[in-house]
C-alpha cells in the first residue's frame, strides 16, 4: 500500500507536469464541445433527457479513447526509456506498481471527465432532468474509463514501444466493444455470454446512459478493471524476473 501511494504520487505528478496530459484533456473537451453542439443541441427540438443521453453516448466514446491514450505510456514508456529497472530492482511488488499507476491515471482521467460537467449542467438548468441522472451518467463514465484504463495498462505491460501498446490497447477495447455486435450473429447461449461481455451496449447504453444505476453493470466494470489489472501485474511479474 505504501509503495502504491509513492508510485501514485510520482505518476500523477508526471501527468500534471507533462504537456501530453493537458493536450489530451484539451482535445477531449474540444471534441466533446463540438459533439455536444452537433449531436445534442443542433438537431432540432429534443427532450432534455434525450440531449443528456446523447451527451453521455459520445462522452463514453471520448472517455474510452482518452483512457487508452493516457494508459499506454504507463509501462511501455518506462521500458523504452530504461526507467522501469528502478522499480524492478526495488523491493516493490508488481501489483503495487500496477495499482499506483492505475490510480494516478484514473484520478487524472476523472478530473478531465469532470471538466465536461458544464455541458450536462446547462441541460440541468435549462431542461427537465434531475441531478441524479447526471450523477449516474458520470458514475458510468468513471466506470467505463476505469475499465478502459485497465485494458490500456495491460496493453502497455505487453509492449516495449508506446505505439505498439496503443495499437494493442485500441484493438482490445475495439474487440470488447464489438462483442455485442458479434453476439447478434451467434446462437444462444453464446450470444448471451458475448452480449454480457461487451464493453458498452449491455452495460452503459442500457443503464448509466439512461440515468439508471445498475449494480450488475457496476460489478461488470469493476470485474473488467480487476481482470485486466491482474493480467497486467502477472505480465509484469513474468517479464520482470525472467
Amino acid at each position, binding site marked *: 500500500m505504501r509503495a502504491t501511494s509513492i508510485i501514485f504520487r510520482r505518476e500523477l505528478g508526471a501527468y500534471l507536469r507533462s504537456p501530453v496530459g493537458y493536450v489530451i484533456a484539451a482535445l477531449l473537451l474540444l471534441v466533446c464541445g463540438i459533439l455536444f453542439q452537433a449531436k445534442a443541441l443542433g438537431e432540432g427540438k429534443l427532450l432534455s433527457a434525450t440531449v443528456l443521453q446523447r451527451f453521455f453516448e459520445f462522452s463514453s466514446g471520448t472517455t474510452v479513447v482518452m483512457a487508452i491514450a493516457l494508459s499506454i505510456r504507463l509501462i511501455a514508456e518506462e521500458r523504452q526509456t*530504461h526507467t522501469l529497472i528502478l522499480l524492478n530492482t526495488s523491493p516493490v511488488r508488481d501489483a503495487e506498481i500496477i495499482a499506483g499507476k492505475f490510480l494516478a491515471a484514473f484520478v487524472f482521467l476523472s478530473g478531465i471527465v469532470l471538466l465536461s460537467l458544464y455541458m450536462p449542467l446547462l441541460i440541468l438548468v435549462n431542461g427537465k432532468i434531475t441531478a441524479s441522472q447526471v450523477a449516474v451518467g458520470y458514475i458510468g463514465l468513471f466506470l467505463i474509463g476505469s475499465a478502459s484504463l485497465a485494458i490500456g495498462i495491460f496493453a502497455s505491460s505487453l509492449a516495449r514501444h508506446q505505439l505498439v501498446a496503443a495499437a494493442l490497447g485500441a484493438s482490445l477495447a475495439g474487440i470488447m466493444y464489438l462483442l455485442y455486435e458479434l453476439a447478434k450473429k451467434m446462437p444462444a447461449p453464446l450470444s448471451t455470454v458475448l452480449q454480457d461481455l461487451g464493453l458498452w451496449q449491455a452495460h452503459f447504453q442500457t443503464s448509466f446512459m439512461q440515468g439508471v444505476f445498475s449494480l450488475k453493470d457496476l460489478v461488470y466494470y469493476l470485474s473488467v478493471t480487476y481482470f485486466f489489472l491482474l493480467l497486467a501485474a502477472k505480465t509484469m511479474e513474468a517479464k520482470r524476473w*525472467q
Partner: protein
Amino acid sequence: MIRAENVSKYFGAKRALGPVSFEIEEGETVGFLGLNGAGKTTALRIFACDLRPSAGTVVVGNIDAVQKPHEVRKLVGFLPENPPLYGDMLVREYLQFAGRVRGMSAPALKKRMPEVLDLTDLTEVQNDMIFTLSHGFRQRVGVAQAIVHEPKLLILDEPTRGLDPVQIVEMRNLVRNLKKKHTVLISSHILTEISETCDRLLMLGDGEILASGTEESLLSKVEPNAGSWRISIAVVPKAEDDREAALKKLLTGLSGVSEVKDSGREDDALAFEVLAERDIRAELCRALVEGGHGVVRIGGSARNLENIFLKLVHGGERARN
C-alpha cells in the same frame, strides 16, 4: 557478501553467462572486466535481482536471491548502463522517490538527502529538472539513486560510460569515496578504470570467468617471467660504426631490463621498446646520456592489466582461481 555457485543465464537458446562460481567478501571492491558481450552486465543484473539466473545459486548477504528477491533488493543499489532517470522530475524529488520506493521512511530520507547530495556533488543542481542536466551530472544522479538508501552492496555498470576525461576523474574519486561504506561491484571495459579503483578483478569472456584475483596475482599467472613495465625510448646515438648494436648492448646490460626490442627510426633517432621489471626510466636516461647519446623521447607505462587482458581475451592461457 556474494556467493555465486554454478550460475548461468540463457536468453532463449543463447548462453549469456556461465556456469560461473565465485565469492565476493564484504567491503571488497571488485571489477568486472571484459569486452562487450562478455557477460558483465548479465552478471550484475542477476546480483541486482533484475534477472533471475537460469541455473545455480546466488546468495547476497546470506539471503538466497532466487528465493527472496525482495529481501536482496533492499540490500542492493544498482546503477545500470543507462541510468534510470525520469527527465520530468527535479533532482531532489527524484532522489526522494528512489529512496521511498526502496523502503526508506520520510524522516530517514530527510536526514540522508544532504549527505547524498554532498557525496555526489549534486547540491547545486538539486532543484534542476533532470532533463536539463549534462551527461556527467545525469550519471551522478544515477549513482545518487543507487546509494540513497545506504545499500550494503553497490553495483555500478559502466559508471564512466560517455563521460569526458574530467568527469571520469571525478567519477573515479566518487567511487573511491563509496568504497569506504559499501561493497562495490564495477563493470567496465576500460582497463585503467578497473585498475585504479578495484581491489580485485574478475575477467569475463564469452560468459565465463577467464581469471580472478588482484592485478599482481593475475600478472604472475599470465606472464610469470615478463617484466611489468614497458618503456618506449628514442635515442640519437653518438657517431659510431655499429650504433644500433652498441645501444642495444647498453640497454640490455642495465639492471632490471628483461628485453629490448627495436621499434624502427624516428627521424635521426633510433626507437626501442624496453621491457623492465620496474620503472627504470631515470637510470636508463642517465646511462644513455653518460654514454654520450641523446635522448629525444622517453615514456613508459605499467603494462600489467593491459597484458593480462589481451592475453586472456585473445585466447591465451586461462588462469582460473
